[in-house]
């Protein structure tokens, strides 16, 4: 009886994770694509020094961060996959989303400041503990760089 109950909970969690997680991911990707299109004209590089045409620009740091959590279904599938090894597609898409979202936030900040480019972009990923140290739990992605703003 107890075992049955536990299996029931597991299945319910799995189902919830599957449906809500899939839905959230689809919606998120759609919104990411739209916003990325909007930000096309902002140059983002990882160069340490500003390109010559930006040498007279004003500069300042901008950043964006996002904390994202893996859903139950992904956790389980990734756990199964890690038995045999190989690509953990579930986590790949999760991290991809998080990184692009954080980038978009940084871009948004730079955009509002009227920047033309962001240089020296750094991406930092950090796991937030608190998920009883099992699975990947939730991760924070921080993106920061220096925005180059034209002087008026």
């Amino acid at each position, binding site marked *: 009886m107890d075992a049955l109950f536990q299996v029931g909970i597991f299945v319910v*969690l799995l189902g*919830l*994770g599957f449906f*809500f*997680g899939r839905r*959230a991911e689809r919606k*998120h990707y759609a919104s990411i694509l739209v916003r990325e299109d909007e930000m096309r004209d902002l140059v983002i590089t990882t160069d*340490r*020094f*500003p390109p010559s045409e930006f*040498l*007279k*620009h*004003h*500069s*300042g*740091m901008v*950043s*964006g*961060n*996002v*904390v*994202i*959590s*893996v*859903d*139950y279904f*992904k956790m389980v599938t990734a756990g199964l996959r890690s038995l045999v090894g190989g690509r953990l597609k579930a986590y790949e898409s*999760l991290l991809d989303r998080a990184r692009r*979202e954080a980038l978009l*936030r940084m871009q*948004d*900040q730079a955009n*509002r*400041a*009227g*920047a033309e480019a962001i240089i*020296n972009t*750094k991406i*930092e990923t*950090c*796991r*937030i*503990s*608190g*998920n*009883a140290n099992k699975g990947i*739990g*939730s991760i*924070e992605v*921080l993106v*920061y*760089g*220096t*925005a*180059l*703003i*034209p*002087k*008026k």
Partner: protein
Amino acid sequence: MAECCRFSVECCDIWGQCKKPKNLILELGNLVTKPPKKNMNKEINPLVALGIIILFLLPISVLVWATGEQSNARVGAYYLEQDALGQLSLQADHLLVTQSDDSEQVFDLSRVGVSDLMGNVAYLSNNDFLVRGGGAEWGPVAYFSLRGAGDTESEKLRQALADNTAQEAPLIRCNRMTETCSAFHDFRAPWRYRLFIDHANNDDIYLTQNTLHSIKKFSVTGDRLGTYDNGLKFPKRLRRQQGELYTIDTNHHRLVFLKDENSVFAEFQTELYVAPDAIETEASAGTFNPAAKWTVDAVLFGNYWWAVNAGDDMIDEELHRFDLKGNFIDRVSLADEARPFDLLVWQGHLLVSDLARGVVYQFDESGNQLTELQSPAINTHFSEVREQHDYYQLIVNLTLGVLVLMFVGGLIVGLQVGRKHDKENPHGNSAQGDLPTYLSPTLALYKPTFEKQTFTLASSSTITREQNMDNILISNIEVVPGKRVSEHIGLVQGSTVRAKHAGKDILAGLKNIFGGELSSYTELLSESRQEAIDRMTAQAKSIGANAVINVRFSTSSIAAGASEILAYGTAVLLEDR
């Protein structure tokens, strides 16, 4: 000497001038007071936190206490014995004996160290009686939750019960007239036992060890005469029926008839099943309680076997009739809330004791209920126990209500505090928050006005006349376009360790199932990153820089639910190229 100092020296400073109020001095001295502290931390004083925890623990402990007391205030067993009509055997330290001459007598057993009577009391012919001198502990509750368990489980339970020596207690032999007691035997009776004294046969004493699944036989002087433990599961009690000795094998729904000729006590003679066949057939017909899993008692009265069968958790007891071959006849109807427990054939009637109401029902041979026998003392006790039970129930309900109220109140207050905090610190979410001032290309940079500055870190009070106080440029490149580093000042850093509060943590834990962004964490982290930057900036300012370049962030989780955020960079003095 000034006016105010005419009568007192104390109010004058060393120059003989009147002391001025402190804030006035500050103003006159043109000192800049510290900027108002931003309500960034919403930190709770540890003492306040402790107070809140205690506030919540208080009703919880009251709840635990009241529940415990309530479970103690249960009506115990109401045993029927032949020579003393009723015994009230409760977790009370007294024993009530209804004697055959209608008088009632109460013994105070606490004098001899008997504080609970989980088994029965047995009488010898010479006014002596035997009780178990137990401590105050109840038996394990686990016994009751053994619902239709398999043999391995009940075996496990049996061992658990048998191992617990704390629940064994010596048998004590007392005299009714002299009220003196002494140890009867070095043997210790386990929890849940029944004593049977065979008055027809030299007052032989039989001890049914319920939890040990065996029956022991003693002589009246305490000599061991034999043991029977073959295939019994929780034998309830022993009875003599027309010269035959039988025991009620509770878990097997059967009566085991024992051969008992002194030396051959341990021999099994015949058996009679009450109920098992009936369960399937009668349950479908709706006349038999399918939950009846235990046989508590059975006697032969008239042409029927009368048996008390109980359901799960030893409740839902019902009185059933079986024919001499063990076939189910019918269910004897009792009062609605009745919990039949003990049976006794007495002077041509069947007596059934009721645990719920504390009365004894009298039946004739055809199954008609004749009267209810009541004892004033038992009634008093039952009503006392019920009152106690209701009293503790009231306490339990009240504390539950208080807890719910406190929980809701705490939730509301927490939400309010969070909202207030968000209002005061709008830059929490970088997506919507204000842009940092240094991003504005037109605003002049902060200008440190002092020339040489000793390195007194974070002593911002020494700074005078600040301009563009917040506009310190922060950048993570080494060469700032359009500017020249005129002076490298050094490494500055700012860090903060933040923990999120439990409510948010739980919500985030829920979110972990569905996946998606944990916006409360995002907010928290960007807020704390801002705090780290602020600290770094303050440090840079205090050492005379107007920009921090090559800034790096680092995040590490130092404990479950808490993370450190560090921002560091090089403080420099920039000037336009």
